[in-house]
């Protein structure tokens, strides 16, 4: 519907020239603006739908409980107090949860990326029999749901006695992230002209040295993109964190939030909203600075996977 309205004016834009400002011009641009109106209404509605819930929650995190009861849904808090944040951080264990999330996410993402880049190089730049088979073998892992490996891993981690640490999470995330990362890195290396690596060998650099000196620096962009995608999937995960969290003080922020919501959910919004806001502030900062890479990386990963 909106399409038919707008196609025509977009093409007339090119035709009027600046030669002589005619009296009809002002009217024509008014007509153009009016024709554009449905589009602007549509975009405005879209923006409200997307932004309103988020703004509502962030504003809520600064409100007192009585403000929640008395004030209409979209109002600024009377004072910007941080009491809810203090409550969430002290009573709710949120600080510990947040720290756990950081302690799990950073090593996992570093391991995924580093091991994945190395494997991608070995499978694409190095030439050997059977490398395509190995790539397919690793690729098959993308299809497998997490549930399929949880029970055996749980038994194993319990047997070797690491369930009291964050290691089960780090190890499991690394394994879950590897297939896609390896596959994507292999495709990125494929797009690099072989001559670059060959030239390096002529200069006397061995293939292992070339990996560190040429391979990694050249893949900086790809590494950042994949790292971001993996960061979000590890930070946001609930299933694995829930399964391998044996003690409350090992809980990541998502698990902590889930139990916090049982505690505060129906009685007090403030602390819960504050905890959610703490949870997403890192993501917001990352997204604001690197949104192009994130969007390209996530959609690229989906298509190839």
């Amino acid at each position, binding site marked *: 519907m909106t*399409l038919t309205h707008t196609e025509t004016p977009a093409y007339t834009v090119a035709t009027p020239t600046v030669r002589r400002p005619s009296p009809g011009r002002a009217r024509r641009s008014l007509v153009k603006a009016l024709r554009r109106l449905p589009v602007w209404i549509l975009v405005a509605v879209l923006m409200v739908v997307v932004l309103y*819930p988020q703004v509502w929650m962030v504003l809520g995190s600064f409100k007192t409980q009585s403000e929640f009861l008395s004030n209409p849904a979209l109002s600024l808090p009377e004072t910007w107090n941080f009491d809810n944040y203090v409550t969430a951080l002290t009573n709710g264990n949120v600080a510990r949860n947040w720290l756990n999330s950081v302690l799990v996410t950073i090593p996992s993402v570093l391991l995924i990326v580093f*091991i994945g880049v190395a494997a991608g190089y070995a499978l694409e730049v*190095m030439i050997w029999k059977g490398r395509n088979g190995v790539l397919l073998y690793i690729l098959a892992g993308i299809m497998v749901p997490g549930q399929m490996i*949880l*029970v*055996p891993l749980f038994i194993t981690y319990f047997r070797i006695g690491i369930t009291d640490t964050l290691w089960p999470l780090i*190890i499991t995330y690394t394994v879950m992230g590897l297939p896609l990362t390896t596959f994507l890195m292999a495709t990125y290396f494929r797009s690099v002209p072989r001559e670059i690596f060959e030239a390096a060998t002529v200069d006397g650099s061995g293939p292992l040295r070339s990996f560190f000196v040429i391979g990694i620096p050249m893949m900086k962009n790809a590494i950042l993109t994949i790292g971001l995608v993996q960061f979000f999937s590890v930070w946001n995960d609930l299933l694995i964190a829930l399964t391998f969290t044996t003690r409350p003080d090992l809980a990541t922020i998502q698990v902590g939030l889930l139990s916090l919501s049982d505690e505060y959910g129906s009685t007090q919004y403030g602390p819960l909203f504050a905890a959610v806001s703490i949870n997403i502030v890192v993501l917001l900062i990352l997204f604001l600075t690197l949104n192009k890479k994130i*969007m390209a990386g996530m959609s690229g990963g989906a298509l190839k*996977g």
Partner: protein
Amino acid sequence: MNSIFGDRKTIFILLAPALVLYTLLKVVPVGWSLGLSFFEGNSLRGFEWVGLQNFATFFTDPNALQSMWVSVFFAIVATIGQVALGYGLALLYVFVLRKGSTLVRTFVFFPTVLPTVAVALLFRSFVAVGDNQGPVNDIINFFGGQSVEVLASTVGTMTTAIVMTLWSSMGFYAVLLYAGLLDIPEEVIESARLDGANGLKLVRHIVVPLSLPILLSSIIFSLNATLKVFDSLLALNGGGPGTSTAPMTLYMYRTAFEYAEYGYGSTIAVLLTALCLVFTLAIFRSSRRKAEA
């Protein structure tokens, strides 16, 4: 030259970590789970071989069948919604907003990176009743209606879960499909316009057929993601009321880790994996048939 790039030591050093981790912690567990699905018990109590008993139980267990239905229903409805909304937005970006779409694209994408738990808690508060009434009921009250306890019913919970999933994922599918639409050569659209195709006609006869491959990939990706739905239904309402909105993933989790039924839990995991495979293959086959026709 080739002998240098065929250096076994280098290949081993670079590939071994990935291959060992992947094999030990993914491939072996998959086989292990497959094996466990023929046993009953857990590692404390010990395991007992029961053959196909677990699979037979699954298809007579009302909770299991319900969880499968929840997963399948959620996957189909959410996939249709996600891809349709995403496609609509992508068309908006490409043909209406054109160069000016960057900002809108970025804003609409943002909820994708939010943790599902956070989104679920947000929507739970959004539809809440009682002391902490959310905006949804405020609006209902404003128009003179009685407050509705949305999460007290299965239909209400499911609707909220689907709306929430669409809200947080439409921007992602929009960007995915947007990239596909950009790949359609400008000349093709141009010449179709000259031939008199416009608006919906242009979309139906030119744009949709040309973007069919990417639509198909999106559908497969979306089905595989939504069949594994876990966080949203758990965080929204704990799979409730009762267990009426508990998907297979949650039923598997509870069976294995709350009731310590490792064998039966593995059976559910195996069937979930099979379900994902069946759906993917079904889409592939139907698309191939369409291409041949």
